[in-house]
């Protein structure tokens, strides 16, 4: 592999010292002079007609500066996919879930704002609500959105290859149904924002977001402002995982309140409101039919899926496509058929969450593959090795594997887990299971149809030549993107990382679609590399002119100018540099011309040196409707082996060890890659074992807090052995691709398969709480004793 100076290392994150000392600013740490505090009025009914809203008492309360409702907001429809803009800022005819926004208030302090909210009189006429897919799709069921009579907001029907013919050739065909529960992103930082509209008509929104660019466009559209007058910036963000991947009504409310009051307005979601806003993982029900030959060759996959979507579409159209299009990989399948339905229900809207659309499909199928291996008497590892795709393969739905280290991943977890010795040989109550995963390295197309660049970047050299300042509008949300891009810029420019300053997350710095679909390393990475290379080229051009040597013999490495043709007399340049720096203490002395001198000379000749970069994926995907979803410039893949202990008395599952191998292309920062793997796994563990957002029969969320909605603690997580598998991705910057989401894919099924190895029981519903496991063990025991009696 190529020798790198900066990337492919374990560089400490550039933001870590600030975060370790409490210096790092998050949105809730912002206080602006004259700032007001905002609060929301939210619907107490899951489904209700709004007959009348009276805000007069609230407006009269001392300290209240603005009260807004749908009347002030203008009823502009917005959402995530333009094809399903089905939300408005504030309900104007009816509320569709318990928590739907009715009005907002800004006041001098939070107490006053909350009191004012309680003084708003709303007359509701309660409507019957639908809370399950069955209820929502029933004949004559109440309808959430008039345009969608049976509450089916989106459906997809795809067939690749001839599914019936392929099934006819199979020796074994299995059908299984699998169901998950609604999950919450549960980032530890709740959403928050500060909106600041100034007297010249410019709006600045500070917000905890993954996607400043989309938030900017949504604010402009909903508030009727030109995009150029809206600036959206994020500070440090305390995790996103999908919950912060679209504009939220609180942001819009804060902006509108600031426009009305002429003062900055701060708003935060409480933890309960985070759950009410929702946008976490959908509840999926997959029915999968898989056909194989005797030798284990997978021939056909039929996938029928119902998604419980909640009250609005949010990311749902993409989700319902992803639940089909990403399932086939990383395997070669002759034919695939998909029928997906996303259904509106009177609950908080679901959206995109880490592993968007693919996680539950993957769990269902990788468990089914295990069952098939068992029926065929095959080792599950061998079944997967037999069917996996390789570099250069194209899936039956036209996804192209420009690199794919699937074999290396499978073999690594097999060997490092002692699979052969353990599988099927562990004592009762102990089990080992494996599964694979597959994910995009960035969505091939933006959420709105456009020819836009997906990202732009700029590298500006300081006039003294000592610092290169990288500007991108990408979103550092904890994954480490600022450090990654700093490293890429340093590598491309030829300077050490500490000469790079990184500014990001601000729409003033350019366009970047943001942190979702595991896109930034590959996409923003390209733009950053191009920008740094262009800045470098400009410095080299000037040096070539000044020194009268060809440009191709000069290079920059590790902060020094290197001459490939031996010694070059640069004393004149150094004298010029020194002359301007009389009295300075850090003047260069060594035998080598420094980057700083070179960059200063370049500035003297050309003015500010700015390198610009941009990136847009090549055209991707087949011709069929929806072919754009699931396309990506590159695909990552992964494999896991998990070991569990199941307490046969209580049903409690303990994870003993996880081995996780992930093909991330070339790892830019090895520590960050491992961190993404470990973090992904913990989210998968939570979803497998205990996470479930629950509702009562009125549509009220029963556990909107982190005590009753349990996410993994340090005691729930086992040792994770992270294995980085590297392929050289031709379409990635320095060969890099995704790790942030793909790593979660194998976790749930590997656990399911390990639990089966431990107990002999297959579970078709998540989460595997002690109660569920205990009941299943008892049922199995009863059956077995019953069976014994008969023999």
């Amino acid at each position, binding site marked *: 592999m190529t020798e790198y100076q900066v990337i492919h290392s*374990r560089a*400490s*994150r550039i*933001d*870590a*010292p*600030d*975060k*370790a*000392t*409490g*210096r*790092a*600013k*998050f949105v*809730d*740490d912002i206080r602006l002079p004259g700032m007001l505090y905002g609060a929301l009025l939210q619907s107490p009914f899951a489904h209700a007609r709004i007959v009348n809203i009276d805000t007069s008492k609230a407006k009269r309360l001392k300290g209240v500066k603005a009260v807004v409702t749908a009347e002030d907001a203008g009823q502009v429809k917005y959402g995530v996919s333009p094809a399903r803009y089905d939300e408005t800022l504030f309900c104007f005819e009816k509320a569709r879930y318990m928590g739907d926004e009715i009005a907002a208030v800004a006041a001098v302090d939070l107490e006053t704002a909350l009191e004012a909210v309680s003084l708003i009189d709303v007359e509701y006429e309660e409507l019957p609500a639908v809370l399950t897919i069955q209820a929502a799709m029933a004949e004559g069921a109440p309808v959430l959105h008039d345009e969608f009579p049976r509450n089916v907001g989106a459906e997809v029907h795809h067939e690749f290859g001839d599914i019936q013919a392929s099934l006819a050739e199979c020796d074994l065909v299995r059908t299984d149904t699998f169901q998950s529960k609604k999950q919450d*992103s*549960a*980032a*530890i*930082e*709740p959403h928050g924002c500060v909106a600041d509209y100034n007297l010249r008509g410019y709006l600045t929104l500070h917000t905890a977001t993954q996607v400043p660019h989309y938030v900017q466009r949504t604010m402009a559209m909903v508030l009727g402002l030109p995009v150029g007058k809206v600036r959206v910036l994020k500070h*440090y*963000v*305390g*995790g996103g*995982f999908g919950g912060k991947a679209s504009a939220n009504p609180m942001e819009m409310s804060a902006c509108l309140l600031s426009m009305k009051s002429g003062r900055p307005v701060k708003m935060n979601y*409480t*933890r309960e409101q985070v759950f009410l806003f929702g946008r976490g993982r959908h509840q999926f029900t997959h029915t999968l039919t898989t056909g194989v030959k005797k030798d284990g060759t997978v021939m056909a996959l039929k996938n029928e899926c119902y998604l419980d979507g909640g009250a609005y579409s949010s990311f749902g159209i993409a989700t319902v496509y992803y639940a089909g299009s990403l399932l086939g990989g990383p395997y070669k399948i002759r034919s695939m058929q998909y029928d997906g339905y996303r259904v509106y229900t009177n609950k908080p809207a679901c959206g995109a969450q880490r592993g968007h659309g693919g996680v539950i499909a993957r769990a269902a199928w990788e468990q089914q593959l295990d069952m098939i291996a068992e029926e065929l008497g095959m080792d599950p590892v061998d079944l997967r090795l037999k069917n996996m795709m390789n570099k250069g393969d194209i899936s039956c739905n036209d996804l192209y594997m420009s690199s794919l280290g699937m074999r290396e991943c499978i073999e690594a977890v097999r060997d490092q887990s002692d699979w052969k010795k353990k599988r099927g040989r562990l004592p009762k109550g102990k089990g080992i299971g494996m599964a694979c995963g597959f994910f995009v390295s960035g969505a091939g197309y933006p959420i709105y149809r456009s020819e836009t660049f997906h990202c732009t970047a700029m590298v500006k050299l300081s006039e003294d030549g000592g610092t290169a300042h990288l500007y991108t509008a990408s979103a550092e*949300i*904890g*994954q*480490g993107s600022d450090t990654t891009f700093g490293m890429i810029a340093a590598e491309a420019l030829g300077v050490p990382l500490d000469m790079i300053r990184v500014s990001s997350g601000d729409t003033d710095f350019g366009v970047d679609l943001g942190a979702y679909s595991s896109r930034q390393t590959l996409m923003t990475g390209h733009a950053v590399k191009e920008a740094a290379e262009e800045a470098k080229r400009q410095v080299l051009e000037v040096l070539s002119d000044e020194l009268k040597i060809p440009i191709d013999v000069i290079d920059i490495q590790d902060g020094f100018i290197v001459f490939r043709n031996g010694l070059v007399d640069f004393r004149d340049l150094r004298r010029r540099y020194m002359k301007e720096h009389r009295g300075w203490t850090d003047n260069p002395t060594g035998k080598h011309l420094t980057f700083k001198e070179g960059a200063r000379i370049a500035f003297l000749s050309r003015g500010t040196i700015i390198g610009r970069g941009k990136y847009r994926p090549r055209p991707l995907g087949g011709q069929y409707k929806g072919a754009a979803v699931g396309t990506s410039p590159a695909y990552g893949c992964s494999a896991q082996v998990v070991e569990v202990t199941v307490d046969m008395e209580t049903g409690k599952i303990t994870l003993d060890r996880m081995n996780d191998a992930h093909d991330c292309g070339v790892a830019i920062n090895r*520590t*960050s890659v*491992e*961190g993404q793997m*470990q*973090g*992904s*796994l*913990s*989210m998968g563990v939570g979803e497998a074992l205990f996470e479930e957002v629950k509702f009562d029969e009125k549509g009220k969320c029963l556990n909107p*807090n*982190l*005590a009753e909605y349990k*996410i*993994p*603690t*340090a*005691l729930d*997580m086992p*040792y*994770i052995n992270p294995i980085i598998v590297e392929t050289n991705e031709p379409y990635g910057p320095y060969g890099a691709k995704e790790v942030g989401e793909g790593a979660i894919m194998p976790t749930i099924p590997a656990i399911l398969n390990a639990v089966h190895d431990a107990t002999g029981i297959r579970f078709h519903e998540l989460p595997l709480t002690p109660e569920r496991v205990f009941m299943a063990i008892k049922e199995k025991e009863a059956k077995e004793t019953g069976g014994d009696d008969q023999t």
Partner: protein
Amino acid sequence: MKTLIRITVNHEERELAIEPNMTLVDLLRDELGLTGTKKGCGLGECGACTVLLDGKPVNSCIVLAMEAHEREVVTIEGLETDEGLHPIQRAFVEKGAIQCGFCSPGMILSAKGLLDQHPNPDEQDIRKAISGNLCRCTGYQKIVEAIQSVATGTK
């Protein structure tokens, strides 16, 4: 009616007039500008607001500021010394234990609370000590490794 309290925050004694229902986290963040203490739930469930009260980690969102009267509070801002970062902070930086960083101040203070009591904890002790500090980003492993490295003094 405001009440006068005297508390030591990060080794500095202060006298403050506060509302009796003010929580310690709000006192620290809103009155003293010590925003390094984070607020993830306000209900004592996430540990982001952990500070040391007389050396013991507490969730400052469920402690009234009045309860800190004549006691000593250490927040994340109080850990650095003239030599720079506290060894636990340095370990968190070097071992990649920080991703979004929202849990980090609380996590670091829980670790300090543990190590001050038990300089040589085993892995399970460490996991127990930070089990009230939720982290959604890291899967905890690099956090545990960072704390272990300080405990054993390895690099």
